[in-house]
């Protein structure tokens, strides 16, 4: 039985030809994985997440254990892979445990800002009117304040606690997402399916959540990824200035401010934490770029000529 006859009658006959087009996830992954930098970024990020999760098992030392018998050991002395700092704390252990703080701040702030920003953007984009005016003025005001100063001010007034840092970074980070979501909602609310949904009596919130949110997810996810990076940078800056993570907790930013004080004794101490921040943020930004390309429907997946031929063979109906 030739394929030309069977195809229209029994589409399930040929196992190579599936009726459904490949799903969004699969095409997305295909496009994402063709971007080498993004894949490297993903691997690096997964590595750091694993390190953060397994930190207590990767080193015999506690990050806050002070050992005044052995301060300022050189890298590789004894069991101390990267040596010890001026209080005899193991630098490698501190690096490992700091990754927990950075990733925790990065991800939680990203999730929280995206939730707040999406809500505000959706409301002002869909409803417009006075809600829009108020929210967008608020965005303007927030954007014209040097946010580092606001963060420091708030943390100075309410004590630099970890949870306050996450909250204040959230409250000063949602503007970008809000603008973005508002923009796409402004466009999407004019679509015909919205009109159809309104006609059959779907409530405004139903439309906002069920119909519009899905179509606005791509830019939101990309923005969330980039927010992780900027939150990690903000956390390190605040901790460096002494307004973020407080001892005995440790973070890369805090380690850097420590390292600067003892620069003359051990210049290498300043290198590791900064390098970690740079690598993680770079990885996250690469992933963000990869996701942007993967979720952009105008960008086609890269396909090798051989695969393209195969695809033509199995999908072409005319058999020319």
């Amino acid at each position, binding site marked *: 039985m030739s394929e030309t006859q069977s195809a229209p009658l029994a589409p399930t006959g040929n196992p190579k030809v599936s009726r459904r087009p490949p799903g969004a996830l699969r095409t997305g992954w295909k496009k994402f994985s063709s971007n080498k930098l993004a894949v490297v970024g993903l691997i690096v990020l997964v590595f750091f997440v694993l390190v953060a999760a397994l930190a207590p098992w990767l080193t015999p030392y506690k990050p806050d254990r002070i050992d005044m018998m052995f301060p300022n050991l050189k890298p590789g002395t004894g069991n101390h892979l990267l040596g010890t700092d001026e209080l005899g704390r193991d630098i490698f252990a501190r690096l490992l445990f700091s990754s927990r703080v950075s990733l925790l701040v990065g991800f939680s702030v990203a999730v929280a800002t995206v939730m707040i920003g999406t809500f505000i953007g959706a409301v002002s984009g869909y409803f417009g009117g006075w809600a829009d005016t108020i929210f967008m003025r608020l965005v303007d005001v927030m954007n*014209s*304040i040097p946010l580092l*100063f606001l963060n420091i*001010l708030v943390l100075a007034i*309410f004590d630099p606690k970890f949870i306050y840092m996450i909250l204040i970074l959230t409250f000063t980070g949602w503007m970008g997402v809000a603008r973005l979501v508002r923009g796409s909602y402004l466009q999407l609310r004019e679509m015909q399916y919205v009109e159809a949904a309104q006609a059959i009596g779907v409530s405004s919130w139903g439309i906002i959540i069920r119909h519009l949110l899905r179509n606005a997810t791509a830019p939101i996810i990309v923005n969330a990824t980039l927010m992780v*990076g900027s939150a990690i940078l903000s956390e390190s800056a605040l901790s460096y200035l002494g307004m973020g993570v407080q001892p005995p907790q440790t973070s890369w930013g805090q380690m850097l401010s420590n390292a600067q004080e003892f620069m003359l004794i051990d*210049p290498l101490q*300043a290198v590791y934490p*900064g390098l970690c921040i740079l690598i993680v943020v*770079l990885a996250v930004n690469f992933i963000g770029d990869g996701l942007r390309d993967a979720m952009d429907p105008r960008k086609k997946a890269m396909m090798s000529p051989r695969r393209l031929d195969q695809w033509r063979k199995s999908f072409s109906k005319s058999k020319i």
Partner: protein
Amino acid sequence: MTEYLIRRTLQSVLVLFLISVVAFLLIHAAPGGPKSIMMSPRVSPEVAKIQERNLGLDQPVPIQYVKWLGNMLQGDLGNTFKNNIPVGEIMWPTVKNTLVLMAAAWIVSLIIAIPWGIYNSTREYGLSDQTASFISYIGFAMPSFWFGIILQEIFALKLGWLPLSDMYKLGNEGDIGDLLLHLIMPVSVLSLGFLASYMKYARSSMLEVLDQDYIRTARAKGLKERRVVFRHALRNALIPIITILGLDLPILVSGAALTERVFNWPGMGRLFVESAGQREYSMLMAITLVTALFVVVGNLVADILYAIVDPRVKLGKKGGVSA
């Protein structure tokens, strides 16, 4: 134009007003209220009462705010809590130092970024373009203060070419050459981030303009590529950059604060961080307002310049350029 000017100025005043309200309310939302910040916990209750009256803390919050705002507008920024010195006396010199640092960084990043971005737009994906995009990736992902520390370790400690920190060598105050030498590292740190973003903007804005019909016309009538790029395209490509300069001001101010801390630069940002550590409430408020004023006025100037330079901007319409 006049109408636009008036409306835009009023908007700026409103923004400043809102910022002052927020800053004021923040202090009142503090655990224990402003008393815990402004008054020593060691005094007896009777003295505390008198102090409270002297500071005006027994009055309702709105009245306190109006009084405080009135004092601010008359230039009375209050006294420091610790030594009872007028805040302005300490703050204004640091504002000057910060402006020196920011202006230098700004000029350096513009001088490098704009020509480089334009060059890259004419040779897309060439070696120079790839280098630029590599730099911008690093510039966006690197903590600027770390870059500063590394520069210090290399050029000040290891090689000894540049001074480690501060603005002048001791006893050398006012010496321009010494100032320039001290500026090199902070300016490199501060301008790296801006270099990356300005370069990207210059490149994309130029690419957009180069794609337009009148450029094709210019080329079609046989003009040299140089002339097309520099006389026809450049003028229009530079216009959007004015807005970016305005929008980036808050980031510049924040970045300056970090840089000042790294290089011990006697500026406003360093003073702010120190005051935050000591809970110098009046100082924090004063610096917050001065930076807000600086940023808002900067944005206003950028918007007005934009309107003057670009005749296509419709001024009469509701919402204006900023919407």
